């Protein structure tokens, strides 16, 4: 079996084990002598990083040109951002939520998508790489914002229903989740704007690629930008309620997932570089 295949299987498995350990800790049943959740996450991220480097060295290009490469880079970045948050906050309550998404996306990336990807000369431009990396960073931030929104929703429902159980005890305060959500959206919005602008610039440099504003991926990206733009605007006008923040955050992230999976796999788009 070649190294790429082994790593393609190992990485989601490691994330699965890590999620299991985080779940045990969340439920307060993790045995004292078992592997610490943070250690498990560090190992998973380290192996994932090795996988990413192997992908890079096998093709000689950053693995961001294909859907698989972009998705696994997104997962890796999300895991690293979460690890930094965990280190900074000294709190693992986000763990099972982030890792559930990480595992889901990595399983999809490992199983369904062709790791060979597509190789187009367009993808070798530096400006293209910055365009993709900006978008991946913004998606990671939005993912975190969506996770904070789900946690907020879950916790406020628990309090509303007066079910003060383990979820109530383990999650951080509603105020904190709100702040994380807002910060993530602002952060992601800056990178999304930059990524889209660079995309247009890049497209204008290669008119022969036949880029059109009606391209489903561009339409989807602009819709995402508008959703988060509305979020930022309402927040700046101090009119953002907890309910609308959660709704916008979740709708925005669903649009991103739609762009990733539906647009890239089912629709005709020049972004497939075929």
């Amino acid at each position, binding site marked *: 079996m070649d190294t790429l295949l082994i790593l393609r299987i190992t990485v989601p498995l490691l994330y699965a084990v890590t999620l299991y350990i985080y779940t045990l800790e969340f439920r307060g049943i993790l045995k004292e002598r078992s592997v610490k959740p943070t250690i498990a996450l560090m190992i998973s991220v380290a192996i994932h990083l090795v996988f990413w480097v192997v992908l890079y060295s096998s093709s000689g290009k950053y693995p961001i040109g294909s859907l698989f490469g972009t998705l696994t880079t997104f997962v890796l970045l999300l895991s690293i951002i979460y690890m930094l948050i965990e280190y900074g906050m000294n709190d693992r309550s986000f763990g099972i939520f982030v890792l559930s998404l990480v595992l889901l996306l990595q399983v999809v990336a490992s199983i369904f998508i062709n790791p060979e990807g597509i190789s187009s000369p367009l993808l070798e431009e530096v400006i293209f790489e910055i365009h993709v990396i900006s978008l991946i960073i913004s998606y990671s931030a939005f993912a975190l914002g969506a996770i904070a929104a789900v946690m907020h929703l879950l*916790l*406020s429902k628990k*309090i*509303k229903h*007066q*079910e*003060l*159980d383990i979820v*109530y*005890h383990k999650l951080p*305060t*509603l*105020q*904190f989740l709100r702040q994380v959500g807002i910060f993530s959206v602002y952060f992601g919005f800056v990178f999304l704007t930059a990524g889209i602008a660079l995309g247009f610039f890049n497209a204008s440099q290669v008119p022969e690629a036949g880029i059109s504003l009606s391209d489903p991926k561009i339409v989807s990206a602009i819709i995402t930008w508008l959703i988060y733009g509305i979020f930022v605007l309402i927040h700046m006008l*101090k*009119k*953002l*309620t*907890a*309910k609308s923040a959660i709704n916008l955050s979740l709708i925005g992230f669903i649009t991103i997932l739609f762009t990733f999976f539906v647009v890239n796999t089912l629709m005709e788009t020049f972004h497939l570089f075929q």
Partner: protein
Amino acid sequence: MKISGIKYRSSDSSEFDSIRELIREKSVESINFDFQGYEHQYWVSNDREKSINQRVQKSIPILGHEESLQNIFRICCGLSNEQIGTKKGFKSFESAIISGKQKDRVGPLFSRLYTDIEAVLRNIYSSTTLRTGVIERFSAAAELSVKIFGDLNDKSALVIGESSFFKEVKAALKERDIGFVESLRNNKIRDEELSAYDILVVKEETTDKINQIYELVPKMTRSNESSFLILDFGSAANSLHELGNIYNVFYTHASSLDSVISRNLKLRSDAIPEAEKIIERRVKEFLKWSESDKWDVSKSIIARSHQMQKVFELIYKVAPSNAIVIISGETGTGKELVAKAIHKSGQRGDKPFIAVNCGAIPENLLESTLFGYVKGAFTGAHEDKKGIFQAADGGVLFLDEIAELPMMLQVKLLRALQDNEITPVGGNRSNKVNVRILAATNKNLMKEVMEGRFREDLFYRLNVVEIVVPPLRERVDDILALANHFLLEHSNRTQKDKFRLSDSAAELLTQYQWPGNVRELQNVIERAAVLSDSSTILPSDLPEGVLENRDRSISVVSEKDMSLEEIEEEHIRLMLRKNRYNYNSVAETLGIGRTTLWRKMKKYGIASVDE
């Protein structure tokens, strides 16, 4: 000596008056405290005084040494009652220790026990789930508020309920640093002010009131942006739960907080086995310590004063560690005895204790004395010789008069302290040493540093823990104890009849300033014992300097031109010495209140013995 204890219902307290009196009179140390309706009394009796325990046993069963220790530890760590993890037991014990110290009823055993219990509590609260603390309804409600709002600093709460309810709610919310808590009962609040509140805490039963609250809430939830919390402590049947349907309004009935309370109880209960283990280890260590003779510093240092009890406490605290200790105090206060006590009470008690007076050895010999030399290092160095650093290896090196250490050797000492290595004179190889350093000085080392006579780096390296031995004039209670001890020593040595001090001689001794401290007192007593014609020491047996204090308060008035304030100050000082700092007696003698006495002492800068 061992600790014994009894426990009886506080309501039956009067039945045990005579027992309490017996214990107070006959025991060496004793404390008592009330906890959960029971009076707990613990005492330390001398083995020779077994009669106390036999007499107490006739009225009530006695707890033995180990059982008493376990009981005290369990009470203090909150393991002996329904409220597991509560600190109420420790607070009662702590008050008993403080009160016992004031009454001179707490000595080395209870002092060490107090220190050990503090350490166990720190350990338990850092390593077990007892750190969560006790959560009851009001603190659970406050925790819920934090869960919703995060920081409560800029939040405010309105409480509807009787004043005792308001007080409890306020205390719990204040514990979580809430900005402001107001009672609706006490104040009329205008409608426009209602929107300033974030939390409404309700305990009302009547329908009228409930209707009123229904009207209040929409006025209070002024914007969709911010959350609003209603905590309902009223009857669940009349609950306000419908208000919880408004999106940003959180409604919680107090009954739902029960799950938080039971979770907290489970967490605390889960901590019991680990806490028990920690206590068991400490009890074993205490038993080992108390059954050895290491603990009894009072065997080597005669002291009854509060000031010296504080010194003893410090000795017990620093002895088990390897920390460097600086012992400071005037000449003759017994600094070396303190060093010996630290050595004996510590883990190196059975290893060598070597004392060096840095001021007494000529400068050119000091280096080779401390660090040793190798053959041929200087004329006359015919063979290698170990220094006292190596001789004290594994044990304690006491450097007396450290301020006299020459600058050149200060550098070498600093290196020895930092690297635990010494290089003999003339040698080029370092040797590892394992020595605990205790140092003493009668000078102000900081001043020596500022005047350039002592290295700053060495000062900070040495100044880990400082024990200040107070001068004898500040611990009047010790003067007669020491005098009697020296008389007994003299009698034993000379095999003469036992000497005793006459009342007038004793009074003169307590009035004298003792510039030479304990050493001077020892010499004065020796002289008196030698010169005395009888077995009673009379004023005439005392030296001239001591006699000058006779009727000093009267003579100073007659001889000097003094203002009334100066006379007052002098007289207060005299009375304090005479009454051994018993403020009640002094105040009574002077015909003033305790507070007035305290104010006057403060005015004249007279230090209180408790300070």
